[in-house]
């Protein structure tokens, strides 16, 4: 570039002035691209209305004993399971050390307002931790080999505490953030 200018018009070229114009123009162009990139990238994120639809009050009193209901919050499935005493004792009697993802049953419950646990109700995510399929459960007539849920996609088996027992899923069904608004209503949020 300097060669060319030197050849064509060796007189009156102010290199500093030229560099300033180049850098200033480049900086404005870069700033413009960067400013647009912020908008272009940010718009991929969840919109305000999408984020607002991320919690739900659920009445758990209608869930039949031994059955479950499934709710969608922000499009994600959640299980609310009304466990029988046999299922609760099965979940509690397991030797936690032998589990792929060791957690006691109590660690997977959230206390009610008075600090006690409502052991009859298990609330978990309804997405298999392997690849996000929705496992089948008591409503579909298949609870798998460990009495909880069975994922038909790749054969993961969950127990009555939603813990992974066998199959490719790496971790237990996650417990969502939830709290007991009253004895029969829970607020579940993502």
């Amino acid at each position: 570039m300097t060669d060319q200018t030197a050849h064509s018009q060796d007189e009156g070229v102010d290199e500093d002035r030229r560099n300033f114009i180049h850098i200033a123009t480049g900086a404005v162009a870069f700033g413009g691209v960067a400013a647009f990139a912020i908008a272009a990238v940010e718009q991929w994120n969840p919109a305000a209305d999408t984020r607002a639809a991320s919690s739900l009050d659920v009445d758990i009193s209608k869930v039949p004993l031994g059955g479950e209901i499934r709710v969608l919050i922000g499009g994600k499935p959640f299980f609310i399971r009304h466990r029988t005493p046999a299922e609760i004792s099965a979940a509690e009697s397991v030797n936690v050390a032998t589990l792929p993802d060791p957690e006691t049953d109590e660690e997977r419950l959230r206390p009610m307002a008075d600090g006690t646990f409502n052991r009859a109700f298990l609330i978990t995510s309804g997405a298999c931790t392997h690849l996000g399929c929705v496992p089948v459960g008591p409503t579909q007539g298949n609870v798998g080999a460990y009495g909880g849920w069975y994922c038909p996609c790749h054969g993961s088996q969950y127990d009555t505490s939603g813990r992974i027992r066998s199959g490719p899923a790496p971790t237990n069904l996650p417990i969502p953030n939830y709290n007991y608004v009253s004895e029969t209503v829970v607020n579940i949020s993502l």
Partner: protein
Amino acid sequence: MSGHESSYTPNTGFEKWLDARLPIIRFANDTAISFPTPKNLNYWYTFGGILAICLVVQILTGVILAMHYEASIDGAFASVERIMRDVPYGWLLRYIHSNGASMFFFAVYIHMFRGLYYGSYKAPREVLWILGCVIFLLMIATAFLGYMLPWGQMSYHGANVITSLFGAIPLVGESLQTWILGGPSIGNQTLQRFFSLHYLLPFMIAAVVILHVWALHVPGNNNPTGVEVQDVEKDTVPFHPYYTVKDAFAIMLFLMLFAAFVFYAPNALGHADQAIEANPLVTPAHIVPEWYMLPFYAILRAITFDIGPIPAKLLGVIAMFAAIAILFVLPWLDTSKVKSMRYRPVARQLFFGFVVVCLLLGWCGAKLPDAPVIPALQGEDILVVSYTENGQEATSEYKGGHEAYVDAKRFMDSLPADSTPSLAAVAPKTFQFSQLSLILTILYFGYFFILFFVGLTEKTKELPESIHKSVLKRHKAPTATAVPAE
């Protein structure tokens, strides 16, 4: 070859005027009419032209379908049904578009295997090959995005599985997944961005195709001997009419196959679950992608064990992307100077093995991972009693018909009450598809690494001196005594 002299002479006054301003006729002439092309290209070389037709068909039908499609989770499924029932010829356009995707991949796989066989990825065509890999990657992305749009059960849950793969990537995975989904899960916002990108990517493919053809025309076509053109007079013929006609004939045959699917088996390559509207709460019992993704799906699921700190899920994702990424570096993995497998006896056998591995991977991808490969070898189910003894879990197994059931029941009754026994029928261990997938995945990658060493040691056959000598030899040798050359 870009170096070849232009054979175009503008005749009319208008052509001369235009040639001085925009030499577009000259460009078309030099690219598609007089372009010197090796005279020995066989029918495997017609798939480039076939693919160009596929892209045009997909864009044309896709643009029309977009006029009738509604990108919303409440309207998408119904609008596709409306296209099928109410829009004039909508059924035809949609069947062409959905089967067109399959035909596109069918053609691209043959095109890629042809490149592998004749060594078309080697110098001086590395950039040509890499651009082809970019097109393939864009095709996969486009097909994946498009499969979501009908909002069927397989659309939704297939997309769920694939987008959750991005979540497996460490550090950035979850943010990336949120960006793709635009929310905590697949929703209306996801469908809308998928539609937008599905419309965009084919035009990006078209742009890369232009680069691909440009990169082809710099060194010129490879050919079945892999020997470069030495004498343009003797080794090449002009593209038109020789290859325009040859390509057109192959395109006609291809379109007949295409039409056979569209008119006689439009849903043969599809999946029944796609006829059910998406329901986030019910996952289909068996999620499978479209047939052209099955080999990669099999690789994804082949790795079921952790290696050190890397979990199995991430390893599967890495392996799947690596299966495509390795194609990009193939020009530097294959060390042999000889291009065509015709003259590489060892690599040729390996190539055919590789094709079989790819087909078998497709078979694995279509099956449940824990299903037996050979059902006849799978024995009877075993009854397993699980119970707790002194706080430890224990099992006891029983084999052989209903007597085993009686034995198992008697054993369960004999256990103390607090041992919570349960009974389950378990299939005996046998050779499963997940194990076959792992072996095939190793062979898939093995092919590329073995090429590296085979290239160093292989004793290749003698190469023909030139393209025209090889053509003459092929036509003389068997007919030396009888039939004169036509």
